[in-house]
């Protein structure tokens, strides 16, 4: 076991980040586990120009959901998290796997929880304002990658990042 570990630690190319699983992006174009929050952007069902910025803090499960123009989501004050937060958790579970999201949100789960809705029922936080503008700007930076110019000069650095397959 120890020899295996040493061999792994002395390799230049090993997988460190688990690959995300493919999912539909139409409803929730952006999800991430970052800055101590599960956060992301949910497209509005009724207005194509509007998106909701939703987040759940890992430490206290503080919930927040507002439009990108900082209007609070109407569903936020109900007895259960609004539909945007529910979609956010569901899509995060697809993208990262239920276990990883649960671990990040420090939710203890058993085998009965296999999807995002199981996680939502275990959230115990309340609304607290959160930096929606920062999350939205992270989403815009994320989108901005798609507009960077291509490079046809070889990038040697990428030899450290071999494309590693999905486990099939």
């Amino acid at each position: 076991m120890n020899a295996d570990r040493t061999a792994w630690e002395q390799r230049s190319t090993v997988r460190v980040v688990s690959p995300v699983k493919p999912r539909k992006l139409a409803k929730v174009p952006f999800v991430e586990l970052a800055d101590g929050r599960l956060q992301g952007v949910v497209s509005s069902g009724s207005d194509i120009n509007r998106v909701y910025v939703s987040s759940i803090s890992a430490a206290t499960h503080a919930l927040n959901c507002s439009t990108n123009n900082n209007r609070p989501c109407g569903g936020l004050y109900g007895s259960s998290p609004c539909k945007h937060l529910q979609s956010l958790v569901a899509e995060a579970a697809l993208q990262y796997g239920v276990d990883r999201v649960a671990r990040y949100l420090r939710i203890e789960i058993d085998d009965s929880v296999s999807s995002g809705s199981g996680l939502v029922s275990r959230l115990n936080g309340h609304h607290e304002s959160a930096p929606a503008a920062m999350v939205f700007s992270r989403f815009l930076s994320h989108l901005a990658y798609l507009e960077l110019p291509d490079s046809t000069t070889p990038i040697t650095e990428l030899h450290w990042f071999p494309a590693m397959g999905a486990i099939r």
Partner: protein
Amino acid sequence: MLGVQLGELLDGTPPGIEEALDLVTGFDDGLVHGLGRLGEERAAALAALAGALAATPLGERAGEAAEKIAAGSVADEHLVALAGGRTALFGAVHDALLTHLDTALGRTRAPEWEPAPPAEPLSDNLLAGCRSWLNELAITGWRGVDHDLVSASGQPIEALLAVPGLRGLAVLLDGLAAELRASCPVATLDRLPTRRWSDLWTRALLLSQPGGRTAGRAEPVSGRLLILGVDMHEHGTAVQVQVHGILEPKGGGPSRLVRTSVAVAKVDTIVGPAVWQLLHRYPVLLAALAGRRSLDVTDVPLLDSGDLVWHDDRASAGEPADPFATARVQLAGALAPAVPPLDRHPVRIAEPVLVEGYKAKAADGGVTLALDGHTLTVDVDRLPASGPLTAKLVAASSACIGLVRWDGGRWLLQPLAVQTVVKGTTTEAHNGDWALGPTDPKVVKAEAKAGDVVAVLRERAGRLLRR
């Protein structure tokens, strides 16, 4: 690669490699715990690294750096001296390994690297931001990395991404930051990718020195490009397609082993065969990959490093060309390029070979190829989700075009294409087969289920980015 060549490759490591890597391991251990508080043992490891360089032009600076850092003064110049020393050791390891490989294969390599004039100096403000983040990492050590330290990389990386000449550094730092973020808090991790992170840190520090880059010399070439296979590189926000092939120069001259690369930025939710869609600006190249055709190129710059700087508008599709036929007929005689000094690291060794007549065996999730009593390990992790190759397919194959690589102290084969014979019929699978979209109905169905992720994100970008 014949059995006897494989035997020669696997028989004996060039002398000195183990000792050099031990020195590196000592230095890397310092980065695990942070150079800000070195114990006696780790200070001795830095001194040993510097000592190994004593007879070289780096010797004096490295020696001074090891002393100063041990005394608690971690300045930019000291870090870069040691990073240079670590890079030089890997340079020597690379050269010894590549010479050993060339000798085993009987491969001829272009003799010397000729330095080119330095590239245009770039804004030092940008680079200074990177250096200060890298210094912070070195002082803190991997074990001390937390969310705040990772987040501090955001601004320098975003600024770098905007400068085409610094794309390599930007992509490197973006990849490293993502790994650190996913590993936070690092203190609680069971094991660390020590060698890997130190490699990335070292290279980033060298690339963020002002005037660190020299542009390679380029000459325009024309001729026929016969494709051998595609090596895919990818992390969350970048993908690079590196095509290995043989260039037959127009008007004669020896055939040359070349590579041509296209790298595009992406986001982590674009994975698998969908990455090909990001390369839509290179229809000629993609069609040649998917259709297994040769390419005719006119006045395309060829760098001394053997890299054709791809211009899709200077290429046209040629005749159908089976990569296995190309490898059988041309590979042994083609001239291999010299390696640029800064790229001399074992991770860049990627020599195309054809292996056939072996017996493949699957065991413990891995695959090995036995040829004339010698056993070559297949790097099954390096089978990209963007193509049809799987470990199962490799285990059933009878011929393989692959890249010989070296990592973790051993030689490995990274398959780019395989031939399998089922009931007398030969079928082939190549990494580039899905360049115009997957051809396997099961994969097509899975892709359809996820929808067109690239189109969704482009629509969102178009609507939200410029408001």
